[in-house]
């Protein structure tokens, strides 16, 4: 049996009395790009929160590269190579763009909680941060305080922080929300570029992004994965149409 | 038996005074997020105003006028001071009230001098309410308890029958949005702060003559009421109530207990002498630890139940 990058087994999650995730199962092979779609409130972001360790799961199991992560805390999961972005921008708004990225690479380069290294002397961290800066196209905004960036730039930085640590499983939650058509086209390019050879899981409502980027699409409805298939098959799946896409499928695509 | 009952009564009435003070603080703290370090100063102002007024026209008018005045002053402080600081965040707000407490003490001394003022208990309330075995329970303490309970009731009604609480909580995170929905946020803030101060003022009117009215009265009550608010759970009036009583009773009883590890060990036959290692700790009586109990409670509560006793949210 091949190990998947990420595997959910009958995951359940309740908040108080309401069960939000009702036995979701999913298998993501290495190096594939997955999109997750589903109605509002279906539990997509919650699923991400469970996978990344933000919330503990109620039952079931989550395997990252074949190892269970359900007992681990977010930073431990991150150290095992999973990194995520947020639906609502979540950056270090008072640090400069460059510092945001440099913080994000420190752990993976093994600097831990060091207070005996001089930041300025860490060549590898510097180079890595600069490289990511280049990739996300914020080179010219390098020394701006992150809080002052425009919305789209902040979204790009959000992605930058997520990938900077070099994790090989990446979770993106609505990376293009609030972007205009052209901006989201650029974002798609960016995502495509930075996830080469990595496993990607992405929540999106923008169908052009979903169908443009994903190798496979998983549909979450009421806390369950009701379908998981190639984009073509999903587009023609009646269940998905009823639950999610509505009358005319991808309008803007 | 006499001792137990009277101590309980003492504890409860002390607790209720704490509640009077902390209710205003809870209100301000929970709603506006302002840690009002000057709260006890407003308590002091209440006492001094009441003294000034009662000398002229008697205690009963003072009971009403003084809290009004303090409330008005609080509202002015909010309007011309806190409001402009609000945008910088909570730490500056806190520091503002911190500085204010200095200023108030000084002003009070300027007006009334540095020593105790003779603010007496009104004759009609002076005397025993009832006698329990041989100990009399003063009428004034009964009055204090009554006022505290009335206060609890009226705040409760205010909070549950109006939307003020909601407006303020919402305005804490999104003031613009609340305003766009048609609520006059600045005015509500001013009212709440003024109201909270008025409550402190009322506590001052009642507590000032029950104890002493002097410039140091604010400093000594300052931190204990923070303990009450936090232990009760920030934002929970009921919590503040429970915590006040709890702390009042614990402290009162602790004072009465002369037990220590040493006496415990003596009971089981081990004698402790001053040369025993850890003697200072072993010989400490519960009575002597009374002053730290509230803080110990605070730390323990925050570690094991950061929401506070009846609180609903953290931090």
């Amino acid at each position, binding site marked *: 049996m091949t190990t998947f990058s990420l595997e959910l087994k009958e995951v359940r999650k309740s908040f108080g009395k309401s069960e939000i995730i009702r036995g979701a199962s999913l298998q993501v092979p290495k190096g594939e790009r997955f999109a997750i779609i589903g109605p509002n409130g279906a539990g997509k972001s919650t699923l991400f929160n469970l996978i990344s360790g933000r919330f503990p799961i109620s039952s079931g199991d989550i395997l990252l590269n074949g190892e269970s992560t359900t007992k681990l805390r977010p930073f431990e999961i991150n150290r095992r190579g999973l990194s995520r972005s947020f639906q609502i921008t979540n950056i270090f708004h008072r640090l400069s763009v460059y510092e945001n990225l440099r913080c994000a690479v420190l752990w993976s380069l093994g600097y831990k909680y060091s207070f005996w290294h001089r930041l300025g002397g860490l060549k590898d961290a510097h180079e890595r941060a600069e490289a990511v800066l280049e990739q996300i196209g914020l080179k010219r905004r390098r020394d701006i305080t992150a809080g002052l960036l425009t919305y789209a730039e902040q979204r790009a930085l959000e992605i930058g922080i997520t990938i900077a640590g070099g994790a090989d499983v990446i979770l993106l939650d609505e990376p293009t929300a609030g972007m205009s058509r052209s901006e989201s086209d650029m974002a798609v390019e960016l995502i495509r570029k930075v996830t080469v050879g990595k496993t990607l899981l992405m929540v999106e409502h923008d169908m052009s992004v979903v169908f443009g980027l994903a190798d496979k699409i998983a549909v979450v409805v009421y806390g369950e994965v009701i379908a998981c298939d190639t984009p073509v098959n999903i587009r023609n799946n009646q269940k998905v149409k009823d639950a999610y896409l509505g009358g005319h499928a991808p309008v803007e695509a | 038996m*006499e*001792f137990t009952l*009277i*101590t309980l009564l*003492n*504890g409860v009435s*002390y607790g209720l*005074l704490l509640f009077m003070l902390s209710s205003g603080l809870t209100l301000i703290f929970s709603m506006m997020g302002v840690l009002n370090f000057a709260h006890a100063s407003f308590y002091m102002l209440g006492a001094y105003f009441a003294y000034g007024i009662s000398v002229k026209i008697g205690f009963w008018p003072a009971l009403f006028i003084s809290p009004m005045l303090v409330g008005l002053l609080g509202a002015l402080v909010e309007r011309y001071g806190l409001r402009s600081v609000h945008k910088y965040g909570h730490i500056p707000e806190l520091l503002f009230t911190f500085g204010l407490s200095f200023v108030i003490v000084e002003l009070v001394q300027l007006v009334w001098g*540095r*020593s*105790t*003022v*003779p603010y*007496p208990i009104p004759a009609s309330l002076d005397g*025993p309410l009832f*006698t329990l075995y*041989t*100990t*009399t*329970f*003063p009428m*004034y*303490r009964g009055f204090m308890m009554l006022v505290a309970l009335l206060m609890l009731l009226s705040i409760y009604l205010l909070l549950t029958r109006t939307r003020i609480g909601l407006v303020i909580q919402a305005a804490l995170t999104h003031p613009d949005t609340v305003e766009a929905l048609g609520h006059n946020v600045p005015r509500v803030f001013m009212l709440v702060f003024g109201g909270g101060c008025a409550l402190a003022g009322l506590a001052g009117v009642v507590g000032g003559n029950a*104890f*002493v009215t*002097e*410039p*140091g009265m604010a*400093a*000594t*009550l300052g931190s204990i009421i923070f303990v009450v608010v936090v232990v009760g759970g920030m934002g929970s009036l009921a919590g503040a109530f429970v915590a006040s009583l709890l702390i009042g009773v614990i*402290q*009162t*009883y602790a*004072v*009465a207990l*002369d037990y220590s590890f040493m006496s415990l060990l003596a009971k089981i036959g081990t004698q402790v002498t001053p040369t025993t290692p850890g003697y200072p700790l072993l010989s400490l009586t519960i*009575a*002597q630890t*009374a*002053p730290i109990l509230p803080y110990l409670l605070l730390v323990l509560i925050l570690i094991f139940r950061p929401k506070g006793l009846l609180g609903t949210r953290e931090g």
Partner: protein
Amino acid sequence: DTIKIAYIDPLSGPFAPVGQNILNSFQYVADEANAKSWAGAHKFEIVGFDNKGSPQESLSVLKTVIDKGFRYITQGNGSGVGLALLDAVNKYNERNPGKEIVYLNHAAVDPDMTNSKCSFWHFRFDANSDMKMEALTTYMAQDKNIKKVYIIGQNYSFGHQVTRAAKEYLARKRPDVQIVGDDLHPIGQVKDFSPYIAKIKASGADTVITGNWGADLALLIKAAKDADLKANFYTYYGATTGVPTAMGAAGQDRVKYVGYWNANNETFAGKDVVEGFKAKYKDDYYSMATYTIVAAMAQAVKQAKSIEPKDVALALENAKIKSLNGEDVMRKSDHQLQQPLYIATWVKVNGKDVKFDQENTGLGWKTNQKIDAFVATQPTSCQMKRPG
């Protein structure tokens, strides 16, 4: 020349009222001394410095006043501060020979300061707490109604000393009296004394001994009245600023104090000072040590023909000082002034033996007994190092 004395005591914060009153007392007496040339051509100048009631702050003030050229300091409010100052003065004098300073203690009464920690540079003009307890217990010994005694005090050096002495001396003089309890509470922090009163009540005590002062005493007595505790209070500091007002009628006939003086003494000695002080400051003169200190200093500089601290200190040793309570002697062996002590009770002013009230309450202190200096005197363990 001018004899500059730095008064280092609390002038702000909770203990400011007492500090201010005593500063005024000093200045009043100094004015009088200057007007009447007590010290011949020399004049007194007493300047107040605020130590905010803290030992550490006091040491920082000490540095300041030394820098400003003061060679005499006086302090009294709080033995904790007193001990710290004593230590600092000793160290300074050791490190700066020829520039010594002298510490005139007007009220810090921890006995240690003239026993194990005694110093040539320190003179105490108040009676130490053991002497006061000696006098107090001597008085109490005569009262056969006293059967059960409760001791309550502030939890610091002075409070501890009072508790210890009370137990010791009562055991010696009245072995039949039972100590039914003793308590130490944090200083200046207790708002509500009713639990302590409940405890006292439960113990069945008929007499309470306390060294409490300031609000701690006022609140204690008030709480006793509320709970209808029928016990007498033997205090050290019933006459200090703030206590009379807070006590009011509640303490009538029930509160006594022991001190080196009482305005309503047998001859009303010091009447002029009390009246003059009241006229000038609208306040009561009770800190008679101020008078003794100025008088002693005047006498010493005249005798030494110098205002150099070392000379003055030597002249102070064994000095016989005429003060308002008679002729006092500064004992050479430990620099503890030997003086008579008074026991007085809080009663209504009657114009006869109780002329002066306090804080306009209409109540004043009636002298019960004047106890001669030799009765109250205590042995000392002082081994003083005198400058060579």
